[in-house]
């Protein structure tokens, strides 16, 4: 509240025209895409069976979605991941999988909302996730004869992320991220990264599984590895995210229209 009213008439402030993607200034998209590319140089875990390594940028794709919104976030992460495939081939893996995962992580994060007109975007996203899970797990069990327990345990990150996303958890996370408490922001970043990175992993695994069809032995071996990797993404996401969010709030930079934070 202002202590005394200014003499001029208050006007509605809008961003008139200008270069934006879904309300996010192009400059923001470019900067965050560049950050994603830079982090693609840093490996954080090996890819079992295929070789190569995961890029650290996977930990900030959700953050990009929260900063820019679902569409601009997906574009920034997608561009960053695509450039990263070429300039940092040691973390490229299967390029299409890498780019798709980046876009999904940011998109999912950007659709975690507790208010606004896009509150319904979670529904088709959840349906798409369910379809992906059905294709992934169904192919493993029906075509490749992998046991149910191995699929359930091996895809723990995937289905837990999908479940948490479909539940009102995503709204709670959105509130935490937008709130003033730094502790709540950190919690939101951690849990939110688990969900967004987990759903990205689901989509990536579905595509990769249709190419490699790994056997039950591989499923079993991955059971302890995948959750640890996702946890690492969450830890990095919390560390980077809290610094970035507090910094952005401190400098008072204009938010992208569809930003969650």
């Amino acid at each position, binding site marked *: *509240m*202002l*202590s005394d009213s*200014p*003499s*001029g*008439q*208050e*006007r*509605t*402030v*809008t*961003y*008139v*025209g*200008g*270069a934006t993607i879904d309300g996010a*200034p192009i400059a923001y998209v470019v900067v965050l895409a560049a950050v994603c590319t830079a982090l693609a140089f840093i490996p954080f875990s090996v890819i079992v069976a295929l070789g190569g390594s995961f890029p650290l940028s996977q930990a900030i794709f959700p953050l990009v979605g929260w900063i820019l919104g679902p569409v601009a976030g997906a574009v920034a992460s997608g561009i960053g991941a695509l450039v990263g495939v070429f300039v940092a081939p040691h973390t490229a893996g299967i390029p299409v999988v890498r780019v798709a995962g980046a876009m999904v992580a940011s998109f999912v994060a950007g659709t975690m909302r507790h208010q606004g007109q896009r509150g319904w975007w979670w529904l088709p996203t959840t349906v798409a996730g369910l379809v992906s899970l059905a294709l992934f797990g169904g192919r493993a069990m029906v075509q490749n004869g992998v046991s149910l327990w191995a699929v359930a345990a091996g895809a723990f990150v995937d289905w837990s992320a999908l479940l948490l996303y479909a539940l009102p958890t995503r709204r709670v996370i959105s509130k935490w991220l937008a709130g003033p408490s730094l502790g709540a922001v950190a919690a939101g970043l951690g849990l939110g990264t688990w969900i967004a990175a987990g759903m990205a992993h689901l989509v990536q695994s579905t595509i990769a599984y249709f190419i490699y069809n790994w056997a039950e032995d591989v499923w079993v071996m991955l059971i302890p590895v995948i959750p640890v990797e996702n946890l690492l993404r969450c830890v990095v996401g919390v560390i980077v995210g*809290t*610094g970035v969010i*507090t*910094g952005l*709030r*401190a*400098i*008072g*930079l*204009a*938010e992208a229209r569809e930003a969650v934070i």
Partner: protein
Amino acid sequence: MPQTIATFSNVSYVYPRSDTPALRDISLEIPKGEFLGLIGPNGAGKTTLSLMFNGIVPQFYGGRFFGAVTVAGLDTLEHPISSLARHVGIVLENPETQITATSVENEVAFGLENLKVPRDEIRARIPRVLEAVRLEGMERRHPQELSGGQKQRLAIAAVLAARPSLLVLDEPTSQLDPVGAREVFDTILELNHTLGITIVIASHAAEELAECADRLLLLAAGEIVDEGPPDEVYAQVERLEELHIRLPDITRTFYFLRRRGFSVPELPVTLTQGLAAIRPLMTRCDPTPPEANPATVRRDGDPLISVTHLSHTYPNGTQALCDISLDIHRGEYVLITGQNGAGKSTLVRHFLRLLLPTAGEVTVDGEATPDLTTSALARCIGYVAQNPDVQIFSSTVEKEVTFALHHLGLSSDKIQTRCQESLAAMGLLAVADRHPLSLPRGERARVVIAAILALEPEAVILDEPTTGQDEQGARLILDLTKQLHSAGKTVIVITHHLHLMADYAERVVVMGERTLLRDAPIRVAFHEPNLLAKTYLAPPQAVRLAQAIAHETGVAMPFLTPMELARAFTKGTAAGNS
């Protein structure tokens, strides 16, 4: 009646997440062709006002906006920034925020290409504007290879190239050497006179504003508190000093003379006016030269820092330093000065082993820097970089100041004590819980200085510490360096704001042409204008007035400050003074 290019009608603005208006009830008309100066202390609202001309405030920042701003007939709330940019060119304080291209010439061309200027015209304009800002010959250089001042000049060149009808500059010369600053003012004055471009410039450069501006707008706490021609605004010395606003040296000199009882009907604001006003006084009073005129600086014991035949060439082949030899002793207060790109920062980075010599040797406390670790050197020498943001990474001011202390194995009580002392010395206690990036640039610089001081190093190096500071902020920092010096610390300050250093430095190291041009006591070095000119420096206005007096009287007048100069005139010797 001249046409107006911009109109502010009852404009108030509140940034997001703030309850306090950054600007309040601003009403203003700017006629076409006017040269308008914005003055005021840090936080007065100069930058916010500058960003309103092309709609960045409020369109980009959001927040609450009251009233109306029209530029070239366009309401800045109803027209996109891209449309307003055709009429308004803006140069920001930090050039890093507006340089995007990978070469100097591409940076200049970028804006023109976006405005669809024909290719041949772009090619014709590039050399003209680069020459205007003294960057000719650097067309192919990457902007990141330029010094801070050179980057600022490039940002100005890029905007000048588009020939906007209104040019808004926010502290454009704060990082430039005096001659560079003078050239920028000359350039924009020429654009103003020859092309009729309207100029709005926020600046602490009082002497240049006094000469160039048609009108000054004095802002304080977001409100216009005074406006008028420079001689009227600067005549209110007490009020401006209360607001911590820098005055021209000439004005202060005559203000002090008036206070000493001399008749000064109107305070001059330019050197020309000052020279005209001093002559009648000289006919009635013989100015007395200062008693102390040391030809050498006292140096005891072994040097703390010794530089022997130092040369440095960067990996891209650019030679930054050539055969420099220099000793700095414990307890000295050394000013290192020289033009932008003279190698000042490169030299001091060798003291900290942030760079290693290509040839020659640098020793600290008798040990060659390659044999010392950077952390060991950091305990001995505190370094405050030119851009404070590169040294800030914590989430609160207090955490920033205590960060390094935690790594020294100190007790919690000791850490708290040192932190509180440092924050108090820098006037930051009130913002200890704030995020450093939420503070203005001047205060961010003081956060970094506080963090360095808390370490209690033996020597402190401050690289351009007064850039972006108002008079109060600059004096706060420099007064602290004086205290450190009095306490026996070695102080090294890099700056080309020579007018600020007269009360502080003892010894001046003048660099230029990649080498050391002069190493002399301040009273000697400041009175060698030809030497200073070699490295694009100019003596402070008070020194130039003293030299004019010396020229008239034939007696050396090695004064440095307005107060010294005023004291040279004694009422008792003035016959006929009223």
